[in-house]
């Protein structure tokens, strides 16, 4: 074997002979480190992005009802972050998280118009039977076309019945660890995903082997996911027949769970019957991909993935219309009586899917662009065949990069998909005249439009710009259209399922790799990084505790700072009034005549905030801070509590166990100005405006839902004024600071009828540099928070004795009342911050702080506070 280099031995510009080829293969096993060849560029980076997705264009049929409101379209707000870095030459670590909040209406059952009806609270539903009460629709005796019960004419157009749910937030985290060898890499990863209905744990491993001077790579991957599904279906319905899954001994099972809420007469209880559909699901996949460099500017990759899923594969929030045309209907009629049932969907217990894909990337040096083309074909044993083709063009113009993209997708329907199922037979019945599920003449059924035959066409553009050497801003837009008519070869589903969607995203990524532009004379000693002891911070307040807002001030004209903050806040436990615990009786009394069925038992809030700061001069910084938040509240029944139904809406039993919200919050724009300060100190004044980009109209999910309380809204709904004064100082290893800040809300009442209270906060801290990189801090915080002015707007019309109509908010919870907001609080925080390696020159740090309540005096009746965690990561450019 030839270990010696072919120095002077390889004939120049001559195609290698076969024997030489073999030698080159052997020689490929040499320690080398080509940054990118056959496999993707591994960039060490930190990135953060926000995106907003909105659907629209769904067919909306008012049906027989005149007052049917168009449901809100589905919207999803997503925040994603990731961090990937090297631990050393060979090991690397990655962390990714994403959080998305879904709100709005989605289709949950479809049926021909003839089988639907509307109720007086203006909701469309499938006129179906349950619990022995049979409701018969009609179909034509000869053509089997559904007939309108009122006109007797065919009304076979399929309608989508939409349902609105309260927003749901899904959080996902993933940790990965990678090891590299000269000619191979292994990555193992584990992830957790959590949403109210769905919790899953996944593990995966991927091995990459490089051959052929790294011109060829083979990667082998395996992953497994285990999910626990606990779908909250809500209270019993008269129209839905859940019988087939009720208390099933095997597989997914629908069980009745006792939850806090109000019973049919409105009395508070912890025993409201709420249906939950529970089960487990396993997903496994194996993949194999080969990537080959074809020439100096072309890479081709081909792969195959096998995926198997088993267990609870149904979509718990989808129902199916089963209609049984009775052939024994008296011959005198030219129609058949057709009992209709709404049942949960039923899918096979397993699914096997194979996907092939081919990707080609070609660089065109003459125009400075790269073209990427991908094709994939997937087929499974449910009968779904899917083909996707996508093309991207990545054009570089100096610091700009523009990427237009088109994608076409087409799929065939699953064997067991139909928009509704019509059988020509008497409905199979059990002894009690209910539908006998075991004798439904099918093994599986679904009307989920994801399993229908359709096509989707999407196009989009991503524009990115390098702001600084290492910082990249990326803005993306995508338009997506789903339509039955777009199916390749025709024969797609009718238009009732068609929709379109748009997605906007904004992201920042910071490349961590590439050494900082070092001074020409090296300070390099035997492999040690220059761990600097000189932690000069270019920005004042750089080592302030994580929870202090606007503590930072850029140092020089032209400086740009990007920071990310995360805040997690918790309240849990008893209700308090003033500074003492309060019993249920007095909490209930505070709700007044209308009463409250429940009180809060726990509340959590997550907030992700991006800070963008730019210094036009040495003494002025401009700031913009968008944020995204999600909240969830858990309730417990108030002893003796009750719910007063208003406006003639009869609700029946209500599951009030918990509700969640999430969305973009308000955006703060601010200007910070340096003001004179004593020696060794810095002072700045910040004047900010909070722009009401958040929402104040999140509602309870149940029918005719009222507004959720103030704390569950993601915005204030008003333009607010945010002044603050910050003073910071340093002396040796010690630094300290103080800040006064306020939130003043001079605006008129927001569209939901209230203005949040003003807030005043005073805080001071001291921090000590325990190590050249690590600082520890302690701080005290005093907060005075004013009461909410106004009240949650009511939607329930109440007519008094004099015939005057007023609109009243139906109380669920003491937190719905303005009197139960605000107070004075004293907290203490402990924190730590770490100076980032390689970023000493700009003093960039990651800081974390835990804030614990010390004492409080609250207005009215409020839930105890537990604590708050803040994380702050700032980077200066």
């Amino acid at each position, binding site marked *: 074997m030839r*270990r010696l280099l072919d*120095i002077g031995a390889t004939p120049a510009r001559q195609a290698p002979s076969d024997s030489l080829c073999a030698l080159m293969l*052997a020689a490929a096993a*040499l320690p080398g*480190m080509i*940054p990118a060849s056959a496999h993707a560029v591994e960039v060490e980076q930190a990135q953060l992005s926000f995106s907003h997705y909105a659907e629209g264009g769904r067919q909306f049929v008012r049906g027989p009802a005149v007052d049917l409101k168009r449901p809100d379209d589905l919207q999803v707000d997503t925040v994603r972050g990731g961090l990937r870095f090297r631990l050393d*030459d060979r090991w690397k670590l990655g962390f990714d998280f994403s959080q998305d909040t879904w709100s709005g209406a989605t289709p949950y059952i479809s049926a021909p118009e003839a089988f639907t009806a509307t109720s007086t609270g203006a909701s469309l539903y499938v006129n179906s039977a349950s619990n022995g009460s049979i409701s018969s629709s009609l179909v034509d005796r000869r053509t089997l076309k559904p007939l309108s019960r009122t006109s007797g004419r065919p009304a076979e157009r399929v309608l989508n019945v939409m349902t609105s749910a309260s927003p749901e937030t899904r959080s996902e985290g993933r940790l990965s660890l990678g090891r590299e060898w000269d000619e191979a890499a292994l990555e193992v990863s584990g992830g957790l995903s959590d949403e109210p209905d769905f919790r899953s744990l996944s593990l995966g491993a991927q091995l990459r082997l490089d051959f052929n001077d790294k011109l060829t790579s083979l990667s082998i991957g395996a992953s497994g996911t285990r999910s626990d599904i606990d779908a909250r279906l809500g209270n019993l319905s008269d129209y839905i027949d859940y019988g087939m899954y009720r208390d099933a001994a095997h597989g997914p099972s629908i069980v009745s769970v006792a939850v806090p809420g109000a019973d049919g007469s409105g009395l508070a209880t912890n025993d409201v019957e709420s249906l939950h559909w529970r089960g487990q699901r396993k997903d496994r996949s194996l993949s194999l991909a080969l990537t080959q460099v074809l020439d100096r500017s072309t890479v081709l990759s081909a792969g195959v993935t096998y995926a198997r899923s088993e267990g609870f594969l149904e979509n718990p929030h989808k129902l199916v219309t089963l209609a049984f045309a009775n052939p024994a209907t008296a011959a005198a009629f030219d129609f058949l009586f057709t009992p209709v049932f709404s049942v949960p969907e039923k899918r096979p217990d397993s699914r096997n899917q194979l996907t092939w894909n081919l990707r080609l990337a070609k660089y065109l040096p003459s125009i400075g662009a790269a073209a990427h083309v991908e094709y994939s074909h997937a087929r499974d044993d449910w009968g779904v065949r899917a083909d996707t083709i996508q093309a991207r063009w990545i054009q570089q113009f100096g610091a700009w990069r523009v990427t237009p993209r088109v994608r076409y997708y087409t799929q065939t329907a699953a064997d067991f998909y139909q928009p509704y199922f019509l059988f020509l037979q008497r409905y199979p019945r059990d002894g009690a005249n209910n539908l006998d599920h075991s004798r439904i003449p099918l093994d599986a059924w679904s009307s989920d439009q994801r399993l229908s035959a359709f096509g989707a066409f999407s196009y989009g553009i991503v524009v990115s710009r390098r702001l600084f*050497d290492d910082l990249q801003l990326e803005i993306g837009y995508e338009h997506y259209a789903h339509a039955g008519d777009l199916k390749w070869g025709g024969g797609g589903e009718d238009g009732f399922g068609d929709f379109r969607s748009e997605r906007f995203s904004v992201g920042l990524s910071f490349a961590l790799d590439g050494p900082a532009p070092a001074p020409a*004379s*090296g300070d390099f000693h035997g492999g040690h990084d220059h761990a600097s002891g000189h932690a000069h911070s270019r920005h004042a307040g750089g080592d302030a505790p994580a929870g202090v807002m606007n503590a930072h001030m850029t140092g020089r004209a032209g400086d740009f700072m990007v920071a990310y903050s995360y805040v997690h806040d918790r309240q849990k436990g008893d209700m308090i009034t003033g500074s003492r615990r309060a019993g249920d009786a007095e909490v209930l009394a505070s709700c007044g005549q209308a009463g409250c069925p429940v009180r809060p038992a726990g509340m959590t809030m997550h907030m992700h905030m991006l800070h963008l700061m730019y210094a036009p001069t040495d003494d002025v910084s401009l700031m913009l801070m968008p944020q995204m938040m999600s909240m969830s509240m858990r309730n417990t029944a108030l002893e003796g509590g009750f719910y007063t139904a208003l406006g003639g809406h009869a609700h029946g039993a209500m599951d009030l166990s918990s509700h969640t919200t999430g969305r973009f919050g308000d955006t703060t724009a601010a200007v910070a100005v340096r003001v004179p300060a004593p020696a060794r100190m810095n002072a700045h004044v910040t004047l900010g405006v909070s722009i009401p980009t958040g929402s104040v109209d999140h509602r309870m999910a149940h029918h005719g839902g009222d507004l959720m309380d103030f704390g569950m809204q993601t915005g204030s709904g008003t333009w607010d004024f945010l002044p603050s004064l910050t003073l910071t100082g340093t002396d040796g290893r010690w630094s300290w600071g103080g800040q006064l800040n306020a939130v003043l809300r001079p605006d008129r009442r927001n569209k939901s009828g209230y203005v949040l209270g003003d807030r005043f906060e005073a805080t001071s801290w001291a921090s000590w540099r325990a190590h050249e990189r690590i600082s520890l801090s302690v701080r005290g915080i005093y907060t005075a928070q004013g009461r909410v002015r106004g009240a949650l707007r009511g939607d329930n019309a109440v007519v008094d004795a004099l015939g005057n109509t007023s609109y009243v908010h139906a109380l669920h919870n003491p937190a719905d009342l303005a009197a139960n907001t605000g107070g004075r609080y004293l907290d203490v925080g402990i924190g730590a911050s770490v100076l980032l390696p390689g970023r000493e020159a700009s003093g960039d740090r990651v800081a974390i702080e835990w804030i614990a309540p010390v004492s409080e005096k609250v207005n009215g009746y409020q839930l105890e506070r537990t604590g708050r965690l803040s994380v702050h990561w700032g980077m200066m450019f």
Partner: protein
Amino acid sequence: MRFFSSLFLVCATPLLVLPGPVLAERPALPPCAPARIDAQAPAVDLHELRGRVVLIDFWASWCAPCAHAFGFLNALQDEFGARGLTVVGISVDKDAADARRFLQRYPASFPTAIDSGGECPRAFGVKAMPSSYLVDREGRVVEVHRGFRNGDVTERRRAVMKLLDEARGGGR
């Protein structure tokens, strides 16, 4: 049959992990004449450096580890320049402007030239980027190093010191 033998080689390659890069024999420096990177830069003639220990580093602006390596190479040049070491960088960039931009961001304290045509890397049999060749005072290649990893620098520094300590005209 050839198909199967090359297939075997493809599959067996990862098993052939080789030991250190020190060469058993010291082959002579192949002919190679890189060009000036810009008009002001001094010309680099590898064969005129006989009598000095030379570290030839092939780099490119598109190669991230090459940038990491510059810190180490600068330190070597500063520490051992007076004792007879010359570090020579040879850029393989197609466009000299890319190489000059790279040098602005990652300044080199050693001379660097450019070979856009690829004659030098071809003659040296460069297999990876970066690749560096340690050359003794007689103009013979002693050691080849591929890639750059922080974990290797102590060893590489020692190899340079050892070669500097070799009596002039020494070797094996």
